[in-house]
């Protein structure tokens, strides 16, 4: 064995930081021990180094681990320390060996080294000069910056003597910026970005660090604080009380360590760790995960400039999830590579705390990729990694969730409303669609789709429900809102799955087919009467009174399908002020000055010409009742088809009463969909509920048919009683009072009564222009069953005292439904269809035959059908 001399006094020198640049002391490894840090799979070796006289603790950089494993480096090996630092942790010195060379593998123990004592250190030290040197000159740090990973002085007095504060900091700043230290130590601080936050990132720092930090409250000791925790982190193996596994990795060669030569990078093969173990203090890491969702490449501009960003979410085999974000160049680099559903190996990204407002995954961190990050696709499928991770909560639990929390749910779509376009507060338009989701907890919740979900999944679900299928819907990352009870809405990153192939979905479907269908679910979303104005709330006219609409503080906004039966022609308009107040015309009623000019009190001006605005009052009826409504300018124009001014001139100037009457008459008995604002107002000590028309639409047969179909279905599937009730009626009655006890769904309750008898005979006489007797379909009242013939809740139709009316049946009553349509949008047959459906829904009478008689005039612009529905009583 070659005799290799150990460098005399090396240990002492190293410990005291007296080793000059370029000197590579030779020491003997007195001991080698493997230590495992908690929660980590990385191994580290702790050693005792000896120079024959003294020993000191040391830790071996992981890149040197191979030497130990191979056996090259073993107990009593003689090594030359090429690169090292000496640090103090908890008053103990530890030498960190970054690079060494094994000179002699097998050797005998040399000498009887004693553990180099801290106490003796101070004594051994050439006290004053050294100290004063260190005290006076900031240069110490400057000269031997690399020697001292940190402040060595372990004893408090030494520390205190040294005015490290102001003197040291600039020096250290100059020498080794915090970043390089941090980088040097690796400690999971991946890039210089994080260095200054290192102290704060060790909230659970051991007392040692705490102590040191405390004794140097001065921010000037930042350097120390930085390195100490860093070193503590590095060299505190199992006792690490960090929540995260600490992985010192000597990755980036600190730029300042020029005297040590290049530090070899750790090119050990990637070790895959679970996503759950990722943290900013992690050294090298690699994860293997599947992309569950990929966002779009978004462009943004903020005060700092423009940029682009995209994110994708990963899921690994342990169920850990994390979001990955790339900016600018990096985004371009990786955007095309990432595909949803594929598995990738990802490494060299940086970890930062997750932005909880955007990121709803169950991870406190997010990965940010840089240009040196590596994404490697995995060619073989990894079945241990699920495609999607859900955490489904039953609907009844959603009720207890906090507003704005995220949730995954799965349930059966029991009803869905058509999507509607609504205007947001900022003026932009978007689509909204609501549906009811029911699950095995027996509760149902309202789910709202926003934006694109309406046109994609929303439409698909609508079609499915219309055709009687009730699909399973799974939602990932839906947001709970406390709007109308508790409801769930989609957000940008929500994901919808229709009839997915999950075991939960199958279970749900089975349950639904067996019992769920017939179970009436209590909705955790409140009734429609509290729904916002933007939702279509269908009511019947009798409900306005019955439900006391308009009586609360805010007006109620409802939609009714009704027919205009009378128009009040006196005072159909008023003279209005045309001047602009802000961005809207004043519209206040103006006074006639008598000389042909008009005067407005509010604007306090006179002008020659005034505006004419509608103030139409008319009576509308549906199968439940009637009410008076008022229409203003827009509504009036929509209904009458002429402007108020035109009509005014027609009547008062041209005095063409005939034409005037024609216009008015044209409007009668046409069915419209009215959007009403119902509000109670006080008129000289009297409270009156007034309804104003906000919008008037012609009934679109096609969409109305669908609406009816939906209602019919709902009716049928939710309440079997109804069905039998219907059948009973059909068989016993001629007259068509149909009424059932009802079970509520989220829609309005329509009762079905019938004015048939009366109308029939009249109808027979009037062949023209009767737009059809529409009968509504109903949905049902879960809580209240009431007799729909008289509206009372004390009995159902079976016992209704009005029942005797039924017996006054005239057999062979014909109902003539004339379908008269003048517009060119076609759908004549749809109109007929719609009428049929109304009748079906009503079950008024059997419809034995549907025929077309009369002339069918096909011209370019007009098609007129006359349809006769022949109705016979079953007896």
């Amino acid at each position, binding site marked *: 064995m070659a005799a290799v001399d150990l460098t005399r006094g090396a240990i002492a020198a190293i410990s005291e930081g007296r080793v000059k640049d370029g000197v590579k002391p030779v020491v003997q490894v007195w001991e080698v021990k493997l230590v495992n840090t908690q929660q980590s799979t990385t191994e580290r070796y702790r050693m005792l180094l000896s120079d024959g006289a003294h020993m000191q603790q040391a830790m071996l950089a992981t890149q040197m681990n191979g030497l130990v494993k191979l056996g090259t480096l073993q107990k009593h090996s003689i090594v030359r320390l090429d690169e090292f630092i000496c640090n103090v942790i908890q008053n103990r010195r530890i030498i960190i060996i970054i690079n060494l060379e094994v000179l002699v593998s097998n050797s005998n123990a040399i000498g009887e080294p004693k553990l180099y004592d801290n106490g003796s250190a101070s004594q051994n030290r050439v006290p004053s000069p050294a100290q004063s040197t260190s005290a006076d000159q900031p240069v110490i740090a400057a000269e031997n910056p690399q020697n001292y990973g940190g402040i060595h002085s372990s004893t408090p007095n030494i520390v205190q003597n040294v005015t490290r504060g102001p003197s040291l900091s600039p020096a250290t700043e100059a020498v080794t910026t915090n970043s390089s230290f941090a980088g040097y130590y690796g400690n999971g601080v991946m890039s210089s970005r994080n260095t200054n936050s290192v102290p704060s990132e060790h909230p659970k720092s051991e007392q040692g660090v705490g102590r040191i930090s405390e004794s140097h409250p001065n921010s000037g000791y930042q350097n120390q604080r930085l390195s100490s925790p860093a070193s503590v982190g590095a060299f505190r193996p199992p006792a690490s009380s960090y929540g995260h596994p600490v992985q010192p990795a000597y990755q980036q060669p600190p730029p300042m360590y020029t005297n040590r030569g290049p530090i070899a990078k750790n090119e050990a093969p990637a070790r895959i760790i679970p996503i759950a173990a990722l943290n900013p203090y992690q050294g090298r890491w690699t994860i293997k995960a599947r992309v569950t969702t990929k966002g779009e490449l978004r462009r943004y501009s903020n005060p700092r400039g423009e940029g682009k960003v995209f994110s994708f979410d990963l899921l690994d085999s342990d169920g850990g999830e994390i979001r990955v974000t790339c900016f600018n160049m990096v985004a371009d680099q990786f955007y095309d590579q990432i595909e949803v559903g594929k598995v990738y190996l990802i490494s060299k990204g940086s970890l930062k705390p997750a932005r909880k407002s955007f990121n709803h995954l169950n991870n406190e961190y997010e990965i940010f990729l840089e240009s040196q990050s590596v994404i490697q696709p995995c060619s073989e499928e990894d079945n241990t990694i699920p495609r999607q991770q859900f955490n489904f909560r039953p609907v009844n639990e959603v009720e207890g969730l906090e507003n704005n929390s995220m949730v995954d749910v799965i349930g059966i779509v029991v009803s869905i409303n058509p999507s509607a376009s609504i205007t947001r507060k900022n003026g932009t338009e978007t689509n909204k669609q609501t549906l009811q989701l029911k699950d095995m907890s027996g509760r149902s919740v309202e789910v709202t789709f926003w934006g694109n979900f309406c046109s994609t999944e929303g439409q698909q679900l609508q079609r499915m429900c219309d055709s009687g299928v009730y699909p399973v819907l799974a939602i990932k990352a839906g947001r709970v809102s406390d709007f109308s009870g508790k409801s769930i809405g989609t957000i940008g990153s929500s994901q919808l799955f229709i009839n997915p192939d999950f075991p939960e979905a199958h279970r749900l479907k089975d349950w639904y087919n067996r019992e769920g269908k017939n179970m009436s679910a209590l909705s955790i979303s409140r009734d429609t009467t509290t729904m916002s104005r933007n939702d279509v709330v269908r009511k019947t006219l009798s409900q306005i009174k019955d439900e006391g609409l308009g009586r609360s503080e805010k007006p109620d906004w409802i939609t009714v399908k009704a027919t205009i039966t009378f128009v009040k022609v006196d005072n159909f308009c008023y003279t209005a002020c045309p001047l602009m107040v802000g961005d809207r015309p004043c519209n206040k009623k103006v006074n006639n000055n008598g000389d042909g000019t008009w005067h407005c009190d509010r604007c306090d001006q006179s002008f020659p010409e005034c505006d004419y605005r509608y103030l139409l009052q008319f009576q509308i009826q549906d199968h439940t009742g009637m009410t008076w409504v008022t229409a203003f300018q827009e509504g009036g124009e929509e209904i009458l088809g002429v402007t108020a001014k035109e009509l005014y001139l027609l009547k008062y100037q041209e005095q063409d009463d005939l034409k005037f009457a024609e216009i008015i008459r044209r409007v009668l008995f046409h069915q419209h969909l009215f959007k009403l604002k119902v509000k109670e107002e006080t008129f000289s000590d009297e409270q009156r509920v007034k309804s104003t028309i906000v919008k008037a639409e012609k009934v679109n047969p096609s969409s109305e048919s669908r609406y009816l*179909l939906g209602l019919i279905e709902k009716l049928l599937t939710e309440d079997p009683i109804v069905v039998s009730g219907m059948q009973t009626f059909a068989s016993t009655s001629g007259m068509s009072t149909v009424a059932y006890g009802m079970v509520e769904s989220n829609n309005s309750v329509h009762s079905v009564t019938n004015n048939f008898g009366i109308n029939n005979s009249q109808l027979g006489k009037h062949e023209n222009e009767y737009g059809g007797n529409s009968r509504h379909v109903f949905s049902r009242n879960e809580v209240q069953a009431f007799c729909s013939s008289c509206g009372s809740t004390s009995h159902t139709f079976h016992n209704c005292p009005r029942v005797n009316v039924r017996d006054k049946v005239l057999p062979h009553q014909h109902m003539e439904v004339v379908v008269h349509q003048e517009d060119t949008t076609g759908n004549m*047959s749809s109109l007929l269809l719609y009428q049929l459906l109304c009748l079906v829904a009503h079950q008024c009478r059997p419809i034995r035959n549907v025929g077309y008689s009369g002339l069918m005039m096909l011209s370019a612009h007009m098609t007129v059908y006359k349809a006769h529905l022949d109705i016979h009583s079953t007896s």
Partner: protein
Amino acid sequence: MMRMDTSSPAVFVNAEILKMYLGRRVRAVIQVMRNDAGVIVGQSTDGNQITVKGAQAFPPAHFVEVIGIADGSQSIRAEICTDFGESFDMTAYNGLCQLANGKFKNLFL
């Protein structure tokens, strides 16, 4: 008003339901796909094909209501054909067919 003949009401059918009423009077709306000599081939409201025999030609893509006798699992021997034009809500009609042959059959037959 003249009384209509209600002795044999036509059943509202689509291609699926047609099969159940062979030999009976049915009515269905189809969308014309093509016309061959005296035969119309069209798509029923449930997406399947129906052939109509003995009918005049109608413009393709128009919706036509056919009333006649069901003489095959996919065909109708036409008695009356009515052109419904170019737009028609097939889904709604399909829904009607389901209802008219399902729970509400007693209303129609």
